[in-house]
Every structure is written in C-alpha cells, then in structure tokens.
C-alpha cells in the first residue's frame, strides 16, 4: 500500500475530516481534524492494518518570529511485523484550549505517550482515563516543551536562574 492509496482511502472514508495531505516529504502525512483523530486511527488500525503506534509527539510550532503559535500532535503509525507499512497523521491545535481526542483506546501505548504530551505541552486529550503528569512532578507548573516556557525561579526551595 503506497502512501497515495492510504491517503485516498482516508479521504474516501472521512471526507472533509481529512484537512490536508502532503505526500512528497520524508514521512508522508495527512492532517486530520482534532476531534476525529480517534475514529481515523481506529479505521487505520482495523481496516488498513496499522496495529502499531510507533511514536506520538507533541509539537509547539511557535517560531522565533511568532508567525504561528499552534500546537500539534504527530502520530507515526506502523505495522508489526510488516515494516514497510508506514504513515503519519498530524493534528494542528490552537494554543489556548488545545483539545484532541484520545487514541488510547486504539493503541494502549498511546496512554503514556499522551500523558507525556500533556505534561510537556499542555495538550488536553479528551477522554483519556488518567491524564496526569508523567515525567515532571505532579505539582509542576507550566509545560516545559512549549517555546514560551520559562523555568521557575524556585521549586520547593531549590533555586533556579540564579546569576
């Protein structure tokens, strides 16, 4: 199955929920509507055989010139044992109130990856059963991998940013 086939199948099935497709890059991808990602993923898994979520990454697209301040979630899908079956899904979210449907019911591994994305980017995965911080401490303030994140001056008496 070429990326072209996958994209056209997705388009045929989901119509305008597939916002955009880009296939002439290193990892061909489709951009999906945030709240539909769960059903798209379920379709990918059940119908197209993507039984393995390789990687789920949060991204903060805010660049230095601040031309955009969107957040994003990238799903790298694969299959086991067929290693040639690869595809990528992306969702773009607004910075405030970033919400995306959870895919933990599709692949259990998404549980921890989504918790990490929540911890690092503050992306809210709607329907996640236990959306808590995973790498940072529970009382940590802010989301460390956002581009505008400032590390705190003090954390439980440990001082930071001391010149």
């Amino acid at each position, binding site marked *: 199955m070429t990326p072209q086939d996958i994209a056209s199948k997705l388009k045929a099935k989901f119509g305008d929920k597939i916002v955009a497709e880009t296939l002439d890059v290193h990892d061909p991808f489709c951009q999906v509507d945030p709240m539909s990602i769960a059903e798209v993923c379920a379709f990918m898994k059940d119908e197209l055989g993507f039984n393995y979520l*390789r*990687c789920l990454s949060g*991204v903060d697209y805010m660049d230095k010139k601040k031309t955009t301040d969107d957040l994003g979630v990238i799903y790298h899908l694969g299959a*086991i044992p067929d290693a*040639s079956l690869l595809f990528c899904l992306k969702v773009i979210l607004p910075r405030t109130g970033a919400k995306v449907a959870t895919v933990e019911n599709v692949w259990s591994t998404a549980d921890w990856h989504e918790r990490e994305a929540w911890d690092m980017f503050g992306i809210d995965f709607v329907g996640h059963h236990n959306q808590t911080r995973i790498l940072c401490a529970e009382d940590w303030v802010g989301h460390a991998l956002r581009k505008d994140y400032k590390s705190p001056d003090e954390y439980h008496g440990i001082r930071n940013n001391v010149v």
Partner: protein
Amino acid sequence: MSEVNQMQASKQGDVASEEMLLNMGPQHPSTHGVFRVVIKTDGEIVTDAESHIGYLHRCFEKICENVNYTMATPYTDRLDYLMAMGNNLGYAMSVERLMDVEIPERASYIRVIVTELSRIASHLLAIGTYGMDIGAITPFLYCFRDREKVLTILETICGQRLNYNYVRIGGVAYDMDDAMLKMCGEFCKYFMPRVMEYNDLLTYNGIFIQRTANVGILTAEQAIDFGCTGPVLRGSGIKRDLRKDAPYSLYDRFDFEVPVGAGEAGTVGDCFDRYMVRMREMIESVKIVEQALSQIEAGPFKTDKIKAKPKPSKGDAYTAVENARGELGFYLISDGSDTAFRLKCRSPAFSNVSVLHEMCRGAMVADVVAIIGSLDIVMGEIDR
C-alpha cells in the same frame, strides 16, 4: 471491610484479608535505577501494579532545542547509557536523513561494528543483572568480565567507556586502525565459547528456569498494543527487527538471524523467552561484527560534505534504529537553522515498561522483580 463483615467472613471460612500497598522504589535494588512501582498485594500475590517514572527527567528534548546539532550528540549518549553507540547512530541518522547526505562506506562499517559491540555489552549487562534479580550473583560477574573486554575495545576506539560521543553526524569521530579491528576480531573469537559458559551457569539452571518460565507472560497482541519492541516483542514470538525488516546503514549486507521466543521452557512470551532472545542476539551480533570485519575496506571515515555546524533543510522526519531495547526513534523537525526546532525521542524502554502493570497482575512479589528485570529497562531513556 467493617469488623462485623470480617467476623462474618471468618465464620464462613474465608479469611478476610486486607490488600497492602507496597512501594517498590525509587530506591530499590532491583528497579534498575530510580523507577518506582506501587504494588497492591494480597499476601505475596500482586493484584495490581502502577509504574511511576520521571525521577531521572532532565528534559533532553528541551536541551536539544537550545544547542546546535553537533552539540546535542553527547546528550543522546545519556539516554540509553548502556548502548550509547546506538543512540548516537540513531540521532546522527535522523539528522543525515534530513540533510540527504551519503555516508562513506568505511564509516558505515565502523558504525555497525561499534553498535553491535555495544549491543553485546548491553545484553551482557541485562543478562548479568537479570541473574542477580533472580538471586544468582555469580553469573553477573562473569558477564561483567566480558563486558569489560568490550568496553576496553570501545575505549581504545574512542577514548570513552560509556558515553562515547563517537558516531557523529556525517560519519564517526575517529578512524579505526588495524590494531583496533584486530582487537574486535579477537574478541569475537574469545566470546563465542563464553556464551556456553553463561548457559551452563544460568540458562540451564533448574531453579532459574522455574523462576522465569511461565512468569510474566506477554502475549503478542499485548506486546504490539503497548508498542513493545526489541527483545520484549521478539520474546513474544514476533519476528520484528528493524535491522532485518527495514535495513538501515549496511545491515542488508550481513547474514544474521532474528531470534524469537518459542516458549522453550514454558509459554511463549514469558521471562525466559525474553532472556533467551537476548542470549541468542549476542551470538548474532558477533556474527555481524565478524562479517563487517571481513568486508571493511580503506576509505574516508566521515563525509566532508557536512560542516562543523550542520544545517539540515527545512522539514521533518522520523528515523528509527534497532537499539538493544527495541525501536529507538528520533522525530526531528528542522527549521533550516543549525539548531533542532523539535527533537522527540521515542525511547523503546518507555513503551516497554508501560506494559508492566499488565504483566504483574496475579504474579508474586518475587516475580515482579523477575518481570522488571526481563524488560531490561534503562531509566536514562525512559525519563529522558
């Protein structure tokens, strides 16, 4: 349970028992670092387990957004510090992929040799510490004796024993001379019979088999669902190895097997299978090193197309390599500058350990230790 209920329960012949929460870690001899599992136990039997990670978190990904590509390489060493060569390789390959550069053949051969040696070292440690988790301390020292030899070779090559910073973007840091290649060849010859020694010491030991067979069974479906890769997935009987299935570097030139668990002592996917996969993988690694040593030819050890501060073109790519623990992926977004816009590390142990609670249910407290050991976790890459 109220007192009345308890009395009723004991009248009926059921012993009213209370579940106990047991906090294993972050400081515990068998959690292989600062890993914490909260176990709910009913006597010796575990009814539920919950893993807590993050004690070693240093936000590697944020650091990489603040230093240029070359400067980020040493930080990748600290991810999976037991197989730092593999991390270097994965990271270098992800940058090279965005830059579309070809790596000289000799550099690729050197990469394969050092990565496979590193894999042997990593598996040796995994096997040794696994024996120790089960209670056999002696095999650990035998494994370390031989791991020491690998580390000596790697030290001779790049001057470091653990955090090599050797595989660089565009090639490797230094060339390997003939004496070093000879050292590798001698090690391969030395190592093969040693594997039998570990088998005699540990693998065929009846108590060891009893402790690992039919313990912590991970079915293939579960393993895939939880994104397990590497020996954990192969232990469940699935033949998946990126070196074979999606050959990167020069792995398509070598003849090697992908060992999978077959339930030799119990059920497919038990601790013994995962252990055995590692044991067999070491032999395959030796085979690869031997073939690479016979094929390697003189040539440049790094490409001259990459400058000290590489600037990949704008774009993103996910590049994965097969590390000792499974699929190590780097998702790299470049904005065209000399610094990564975003570097996400998909660490294999992170996904592997997320299945722990499923495996622990119904096991005994001693089995939890055996299961954690068989997952071969490295907190450096789980917490990043």
